[in-house]
């Protein structure tokens, strides 16, 4: 018998290698359910899961919702408007109200790093962090690791390049935590303004040139550029960014011939990845990521649901 050590999934940082393996293996077994004609098992019948989203994210929310439904849980979506969040009390008030509704799991997406930690300390329900600020996005990193393992058969020893706005990316942080625990070598690259201070202390190699980072990479992970960052003067224009940090037919030749290309979506086509690469089934695994996302989230819901012992 196996179980996760904690009541919540707040980040990959807190996870052990065994826990990551348990989640990935469970997720791999869940993949099959999505291929059935009746894509549903009764496992979480009578359980309720609240998707509490303080940030719009159709993809992640839908993925959690499908995962819950395929396990026969009741899923309830609550989208809090950002205007009411500004006051700050809202998360606490909402938490108290939700607790009264007695759900089993709360999936929280929030623009503030640490918000899931606060919620977890306030309510007895299990909290799954579906992305908190620039901190962590554990289910994304797990589905990325699952996809890499599916395509490469392993994680240890692989060279993974993560390209883009590392500073503001929770996907990058969770993947750095997870992949380094699993023994991969990580190189991050992006404009110097998008590199967080002391990033090397996280155990990664950092550089500012895409070409340097992707050379001999087994996996190239491209991050989404938030267009509004332009206002903070961390990059001058999308045009200039795309000229130097867009993965294309030419620079991808620097990576290993069998390298896979990943993106957490949604893609800014022609900015992070050229359309022909994004749509090339020989290297792009972007659709596998979406598919695996449902399985990983099913695994998390499944492993967290249980008695109060």
């Amino acid at each position, binding site marked *: *018998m196996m*179980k996760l050590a904690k009541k919540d999934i707040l980040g990959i940082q807190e996870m052990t290698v065994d826990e990551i393996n348990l989640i990935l293996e469970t997720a*791999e077994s*869940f993949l099959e359910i999505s291929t*059935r004609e009746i894509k549903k098992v*009764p*496992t979480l019948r009578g359980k309720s899961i609240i998707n509490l989203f303080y940030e719009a994210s159709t993809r992640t929310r839908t993925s959690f919702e499908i995962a819950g439904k395929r396990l026969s849980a009741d899923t309830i979506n609550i989208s809090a408007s950002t205007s009411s969040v500004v006051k700050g009390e809202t998360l606490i008030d909402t938490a108290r109200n939700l607790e009264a509704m007695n759900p089993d799991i709360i999936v929280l997406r929030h623009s503030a790093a640490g918000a899931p930690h606060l919620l977890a300390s306030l309510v007895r329900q299990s909290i799954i962090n579906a992305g908190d600020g620039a901190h962590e996005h554990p289910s994304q990193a797990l589905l990325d690791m699952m996809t890499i393992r599916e395509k490469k058969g392993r994680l240890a020893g692989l060279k993974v390049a993560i390209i883009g706005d590392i500073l503001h990316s929770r996907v990058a942080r969770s993947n750095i935590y997870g992949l380094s625990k699993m023994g991969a070598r990580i190189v991050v690259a992006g404009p110097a303004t998008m590199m967080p201070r002391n990033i090397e202390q996280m155990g990664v190699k950092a550089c500012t040139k895409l070409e340097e980072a992707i050379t001999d990479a087994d996996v190239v992970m491209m991050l989404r550029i938030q267009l509004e960052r332009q206002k903070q003067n961390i990059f001058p224009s999308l045009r200039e960014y795309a000229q130097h940090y867009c993965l294309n037919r030419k620079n991808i030749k620097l990576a290993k011939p069998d390298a896979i290309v990943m993106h957490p979506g949604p893609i800014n086509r022609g900015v992070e990845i050229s359309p022909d690469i994004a749509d090339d089934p020989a290297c792009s695994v972007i659709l596998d990521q979406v598919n695996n996302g449902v399985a990983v989230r099913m695994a998390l819901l*499944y492993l967290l649901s*249980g008695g109060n012992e």
Partner: protein
Amino acid sequence: MPETKSPKVVMDSDGIERCLTRIAYEILEKNKGIDNLVLVGIRTGGIYLAERLQKKISAIENTKIPLGILDITLYRDDITKTSKKAPLGKTKIPFDLEDKKVILVDDVLFTGRTIRAAMDALIDFGRPKMIQLAVLIDRGHRELPIRADYVGKNLPSSLWEAVSVNLLEKNGKDEVLIEEET
């Protein structure tokens, strides 16, 4: 502390083989051949028994009948009572169940809850014409109205006894053991 008694062998390798041979013939007899017949083994002990039955039936009929694997963990009725989880195995039903005669195979029939879960799982894959149950050991103590169509051996046991089926494929040795639970 109660003294631990050493496990008692209630069936050896030959016994298991004889039972499976008999069950293979019984299946063919009852279903009048292999038309629309499929085997589905329940993880984990049932898989190997189903594989052996598949071989025996193939040998008799000169045709291989389809074989599926079912993990019933997600259908258990006690799954959310505990946060401890059995490792989840893969389910493989690589054929259409519609109008098939399914022989569900498991090692030990006990409370019947596993079989209940297995039938629920099967029905999610399609609508079989009928489901029959083959087990190596029936140890009694049913909690649901379920009975096996093919039984290797009826083994009266008490609730505090553990019955374990060891198979060559996973334990390196064929034998059925009974022992007092510690």
